[in-house]
């Protein structure tokens, strides 16, 4: 983790901070979800405690903590309690690998606003999120309830099916940037949109930022839809089809254990949003403003180079979170707008629609890149 004790301590603190950001985002998201759904459905939502019902979060946390803790008699105790704890891990590990802001230079030290810099970031995130299936399967098996087991099998079959489309839709992005590194992908998206075709430069679109979305619109749509299915949210929350499966794999969970599952799910949303922002919307960079211009602009207020770097980093951090927030809002909006799919429709969509389209996207991207480099 570092070569000296100081570095190890600083990196540990940084990692815990990233984790705490994720955990703290969850109550805010829950509040947003409840207020947002109320807004969409023309009701009030939680509005009793505190201004705008904001203190509801605190009340909920206290309530969860003081709820009775029990497990069903037929459950396998170890797996039953292990599942919600395991559910936290994939989202945390993935979130820590995504850069959240420009690196901060403080004297001779460089702080990256990300948990750890991994050169194969995309593969790492995919690998870690493929472990999310275990929490679902453990919960279903550990509960000792046949509905929970059915829900777990459904949910895991759904998650792995959409993992194919998700993984394939990223191939286009990797083809485009030729790297697995998030930081390099973000660097490549700076500046105006200038297309290269057979040695010519096409500049009539240069009023747009050089974002991945303009190169990979189809890839982005597929990625976004698969991200919904991966995080088990409506319209893909078949695991929770309460009509036939009670509540899916977490039917036997309540109180704090349920909250841990919630943190996992919202963490997954956060990771998906951050990934979309990184791949397709330029990550922490500000459109039409280069990093040098930003540093210069900050420099008109502050003189010390350390503080300039720090303020720049914080501004890019805020920009990244604004982009993430947009997608989080879309997640919530979609949940309260669209009805649920039927299970066969869901599997058909994953295997017979999104997978072929993702394949088409890959072939198209490869062909265009191949011919664009000719001449």
């Amino acid at each position: 983790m570092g070569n000296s004790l100081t570095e190890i301590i600083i990196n540990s603190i940084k990692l815990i901070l990233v984790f705490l950001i994720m955990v703290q985002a969850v109550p805010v998201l829950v509040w947003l979800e409840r207020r947002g759904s109320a807004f969409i459905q023309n009701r009030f939502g939680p509005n009793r405690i505190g201004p705008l019902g904001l203190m509801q979060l605190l009340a909920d946390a206290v309530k969860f903590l003081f709820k009775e803790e029990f497990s069903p008699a037929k459950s396998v105790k170890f797996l039953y309690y292990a599942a919600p704890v395991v559910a936290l891990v994939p989202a945390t590990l993935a979130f820590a690998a995504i850069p959240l802001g420009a690196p901060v230079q403080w004297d001779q030290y460089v702080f990256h606003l990300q948990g750890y810099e991994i050169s194969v970031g995309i593969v790492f995130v995919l690998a870690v999120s493929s472990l999310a299936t275990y929490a679902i399967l453990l919960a279903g098996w550990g509960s000792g309830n046949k509905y929970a087991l059915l829900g777990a099998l459904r949910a895991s079959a759904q998650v792995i099916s959409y993992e194919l489309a998700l993984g394939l839709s990223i191939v286009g992005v990797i083809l485009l940037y030729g790297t697995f590194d998030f930081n390099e992908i973000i660097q490549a998206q700076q500046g105006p949109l200038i297309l290269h075709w057979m040695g010519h430069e096409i500049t009539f679109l240069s009023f747009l930022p050089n974002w991945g979305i303009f190169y990979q619109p189809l890839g982005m749509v597929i990625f976004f839809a698969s991200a919904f299915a991966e995080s088990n949210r409506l319209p893909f929350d078949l695991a929770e089809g309460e009509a036939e499966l009670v509540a899916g794999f977490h039917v036997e969970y309540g109180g704090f254990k349920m909250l841990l599952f919630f943190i996992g799910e919202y963490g997954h949303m956060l990771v998906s949003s951050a990934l979309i922002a990184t791949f397709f919307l330029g990550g922490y960079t500000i459109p039409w403003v280069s990093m040098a211009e930003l540093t210069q602009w900050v420099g008109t207020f502050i003189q010390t180079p350390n503080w300039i770097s720090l303020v720049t980093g914080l501004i890019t951090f805020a920009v990244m979170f604004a982009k993430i927030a947009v997608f989080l809002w879309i997640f919530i909006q979609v949940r309260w707008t669209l009805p649920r799919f039927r299970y066969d429709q869901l599997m058909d969509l994953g295997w017979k629609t999104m997978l072929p389209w993702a394949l088409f996207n890959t072939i198209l991207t490869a062909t265009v890149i191949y011919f664009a480099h000719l001449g």
Partner: protein
Amino acid sequence: MITDVFLFWFLAIVTLAAGITVVTVTNPIYSALALAMTMIGVSALFVTLGAYFLAGVQIIVYAGAVTVLFVMVVMLFDLKYEVVAFSRGKVSGALKLASGATLGGLLIGSIFLTVNGVTKAVSVGTSEKAGDTTKELSRLLFTKYVFGFEALGVLLLIIAVGAVALARSKGGTHAEH
């Protein structure tokens, strides 16, 4: 350097403990979970060897796909604790253990005897930057080993067809009645 050594021993112990659990635990579901842990440990060991991309692939393919299949099958069969998990017969069991120990001894002995003779090509630069290992890997995969690559594609196709055919044949899981 000291952190490297510490990391290796930590990972080696975790991997070995998980591996022993796979073999000794009587409940197949714990066996499968321990197998997943072993895969993750081996993947972390890959990272210490600089094979970053392979480490990711190891988790995606083994821990994320193959072991999930094992867990799912165990759940489908609804297997609980086994009464006779291990092969019966004291003599044959002792014989099997002894043969295992002999093989282990032979392997480790030969490693110690021969590893001094292993030579290293000095000038070949596996770069310290991880991305370069990945690029080097794909360069070799698509030039020297391109035939094997295509053959694996065909193999996967055959397996996909075969698995479905197996499931749909008479007595299979998806047999038509």
